[in-house]
């Protein structure tokens, strides 16, 4: 592939995509089971969400999940967009766009979680 002089190499990016993907198997698996399948009625009410997040280990787990899933998603979006064959300038915009989008989502998500402690 192209672009050898672009900071992180393609191989490392692919490894990060793969490693975060495998981590997500566990993180998302637990998230789905906890919030959906064992939650009474299939989805938690407000009080139940607060009670669930009041446990520090669970809170940390959800925060970790937020960070990893956003990272994996933004890396993925980037590689889909790069496959469309953008110009070097467009590539820069894509990099900036996914970085801002990703950091924005993480900051917002952490803020949300901090409100629900």
């Amino acid at each position, binding site marked *: 592939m192209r672009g050898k002089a672009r900071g992180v190499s393609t191989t490392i990016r692919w490894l990060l995509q793969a490693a975060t993907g495998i981590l997500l198997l566990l993180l998302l698996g637990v998230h789905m089971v906890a919030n959906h399948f064992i939650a009474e009625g299939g989805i938690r009410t407000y009080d139940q969400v607060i009670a669930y997040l009041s446990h520090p280990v669970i809170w940390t787990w959800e925060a970790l999940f937020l960070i990893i899933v956003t990272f994996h998603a933004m890396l*993925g979006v980037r590689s889909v967009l790069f496959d469309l064959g953008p110009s070097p300038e467009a590539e820069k915009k894509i990099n900036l766009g996914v970085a801002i989008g990703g950091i924005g989502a993480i900051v917002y998500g952490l803020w949300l979680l901090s409100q629900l402690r």
Partner: protein
Amino acid sequence: MSQQMSVSRPFLRRGWRAWFQVRGRHVGYIAFALNRLTGLGLVLYLILHLMVLSLLTRGPNAWDAFVRLAKSPLFLLLDGILLFGILFHGLNGVRVVLVSMGIGVRRHKELFWALMGLAALLLLGGVWGMWHV
């Protein structure tokens, strides 16, 4: 990087329309395209999900009204589609990672179908569960 990927990428450079030309492609390509489609679908879901979660900051009434809505048949249908996306993308992802590490390369087709069988079972179990809560 997985072989199937390096084979398909030059194709993708032709623009987004080439993604949808599935005729004459083999399972590997369809798996790649579906992996991409489900990945993007999950990103869309994540964005909507994070937006909806902001209701939690507006207290019990706002969130619990959403919870009632989320139990409607339309939402359950969307949930089923979401579950399909997660299972396909996640378990196909396992195959991509294994094969790229050199595990199961010669039997990657069997690996694919075994994982898809597992996905189908989990999907059926999940959908059954959804209608019985």
